[in-house]
């Protein structure tokens, strides 16, 4: 899909994947999550092969894909499971906690998908167009989540065409 690439992210680091549609940004994110197929090469975490134990790697990773992965029949709180309240607070959806998600707007569903990042602490955040459909207040709130995550040493890899509310960001250009 894409040519040979190599990059590393330090603790608290953030890398933005940029490139035209179809350049392989989402594919790269899925490979790093352990979901996609790696034809050649390696994904390393702290000097070890990250994908040797894919189930264990899943715990290190929080992945927000194109799709929100929320169930319309469940309430916001039920969708998030344990620790839902912290997640709902982080994205400002506490007042809708017990509403079935089928009544949510597209932006609210996206915020619920992002709330998953706050529910389960994971050192690696892999984000595919995370702010698509968000209003400015939500983008600001998401910026605070990103800053909090990086302050604790977490790393962020994001594919996006929209500017993300982050400072000190590396850029990886895929062609």
């Amino acid at each position, binding site marked *: 899909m894409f040519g040979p690439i190599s990059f590393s992210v330090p603790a608290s680091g953030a890398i933005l994947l940029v490139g035209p549609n179809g350049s392989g940004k989402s594919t790269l994110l*899925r490979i790093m*999550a*352990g*979901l*996609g*197929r790696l034809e050649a090469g390696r994904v390393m975490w702290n000097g070890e092969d990250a994908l040797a134990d*894919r*189930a*264990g790697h*899943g*715990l290190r*990773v*929080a*992945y927000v*894909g*194109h*799709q*929100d*992965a*929320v*169930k319309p*029949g*469940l309430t916001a709180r*039920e969708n998030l*499971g*344990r620790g839902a309240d912290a997640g709902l607070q982080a994205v400002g959806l506490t007042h809708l906690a017990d509403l079935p998600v089928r009544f949510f707007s597209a932006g609210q569903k996206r915020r619920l998908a992002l709330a*998953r990042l706050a529910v389960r602490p994971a050192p690696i955040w892999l984000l595919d167009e995370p702010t698509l459909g968000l209003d400015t207040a939500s983008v600001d709130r998401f910026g605070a989540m990103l800053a909090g995550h990086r302050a604790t040493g977490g790393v962020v890899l994001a594919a996006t065409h929209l500017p993300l509310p982050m400072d000190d960001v590396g850029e990886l250009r895929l062609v």
Partner: protein
Amino acid sequence: MNEFFLIIGRDLRLSMRHGADTLGALLFFVLTAALFPLAIGPSPETLGRLAPGIVWVCALLAALLPLDRLFGADFDDGALDQLLLAGQPAAMVALARAVSHWLVTGLPLIIAAGPVALMLNLDPTVVPVLLAGLLPGTALLSLFGSTGAALVLGARRGGVLLPLLVLPLAAPVLIFGVAAADAAASEQSPAAALLLLCALFAAALPLCPLAAGAALRSAAE
């Protein structure tokens, strides 16, 4: 392990919310069984002789009904990715889903099978044997079904492919299940057929989730 039960709990909650879908398989079972007396005539002897076969075939077809959404819904809305990233081996995700399928479809079928068998004039002494066969039988259908559902994920017209994949696997289950009830009806011991069903279950319990887990991984790719 905790995550395993969380998946099952979530599945059960979703099934409760979509009650009409959940009851669909059960209603299908009762209605198709009720069609047989209309089709082959109300003669009690004929019906009583055919009852185990009717119950088994109807249960098998009813268990197939919910299969194409078993993983399909999660595959379509991205929830499958989140399940695979929850720290569980993919095989455990598949096993949890097979257990949910059994609790939501298999167990109600067993409960309904008794009254349906009596309605078809099955000798009441044979009913316990029929139900004893359905217990491992429906569990096997859930295991085979979840494997088939995982294999056809992402395939075009997967819903058509699924019965073609699962029905041949289910044939031995049907044969031994009916054989157990027939043996009891002719006053022989049903133990051999029941034990063969249990042996099939013992083999399928580790193998089917492994195959389904690998299929889920490859569908996510």
